[in-house]
């Protein structure tokens, strides 16, 4: 590999690594697997020498990273239980630490968010993935990454949010009824 190519590729990784990792994380919800998937995506880009002359670099990286993560998710489904939700349900105060909140509020918020994470995990995969990616990308970028139309992405996002809202409402009703 020529030094100028190596420099160009290093620049691409520096610009897009965090984004590629977050895309992989949104699909896999596991740090090690997300890291491996994102690295695999960049390795594919390097082998194909595809980083030169990209029209939309971010969308391209999102597509490759999402594809690598989905392949890894499929392999992990065939090997063992799903990767997602491994940390869900546990109280992890460091993830929701907010200095403005009191101890009781931290516990309540953490448990509520953990419950919502479980609910997101329980969504169908075709709805969960665009919903998780929507934090990082807009509808056009999600469509490019997933290989579907932008209208389909919007429809799925609406359905995902509606289903999640419904699940949260049902969960809170059960909580109030229990109290």
């Amino acid at each position, binding site marked *: *590999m020529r030094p100028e190519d190596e420099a160009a590729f290093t620049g691409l990784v*520096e610009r897009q*690594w965090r984004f590629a*990792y*977050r895309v992989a994380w949104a699909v896999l919800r596991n740090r090690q697997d997300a*890291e491996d998937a994102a690295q695999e995506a960049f390795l594919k880009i390097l082998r194909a020498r595809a980083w030169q002359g990209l029209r939309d670099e971010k969308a391209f990286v999102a597509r490759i990273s999402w594809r690598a993560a989905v392949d890894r998710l499929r392999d992990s489904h065939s090997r063992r239980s799903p990767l997602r939700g491994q940390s869900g349900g546990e109280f992890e105060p460091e993830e929701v630490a907010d200095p403005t909140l009191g101890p009781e509020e931290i516990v309540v918020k953490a448990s509520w968010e953990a419950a919502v994470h479980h609910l997101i995990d329980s969504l169908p995969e075709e709805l969960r993935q665009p919903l*998780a990616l929507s*934090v*990082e990308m807009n509808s056009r970028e999600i469509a490019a990454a997933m290989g579907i139309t932008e209208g389909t992405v919007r429809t799925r996002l609406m359905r995902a949010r509606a289903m999640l809202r419904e699940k949260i409402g049902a969960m809170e009703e059960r909580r109030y009824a229990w109290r």
Partner: protein
Amino acid sequence: MRGDDRDERMDAALRSYADPGEIPETRVVVARVMGSARSSELQRKALWVWGAAGLAAMLAVGVVWMMPSSRVPEIAWTPKAPGVARVEVPLGEPRVDAESASVRSRAAVGARGMRTAAAKQLPKLDSFPTPRPLSPEEEALVSFARQAPPGVKKAVIEDQQHWDQPIIVADLRDPSLQAGGHQDQ
């Protein structure tokens, strides 16, 4: 709980859901990716080398196989004598009366085998019918054709064209015989 508040909390939960937390450093990732690329490149080169070596070995084996000296030696052709070769046909010991018929039949089979073998051994000639030496009459005719004067040859040829016509022989008139006859009478 109001709907707007619930949506805000839901969005906050969604943000925390999509937040991976600490992200590995870019430098480490670049080093890992480049190392993987180099190792896979080396593996690919090694694969090419082994593949080329295998191909060369197969080609060498093919070349050796195709060389004429490596083939099974052909049976040398030896021209056979034009005569009839003797073929030994085992007939076995001749049996006595009770089995004389089978002995005869076996002998006939053996003779037939000899004839067939002899026919197979006869040389094949290029001309038909087979040339043979001239008979004495043919030799006399040839010498006559070479030595006789042209007038005589022409007369002989013309005479040959009328060979199917009846031969007319004039009456014999011998005065001495006729005279002798008269004397006896």
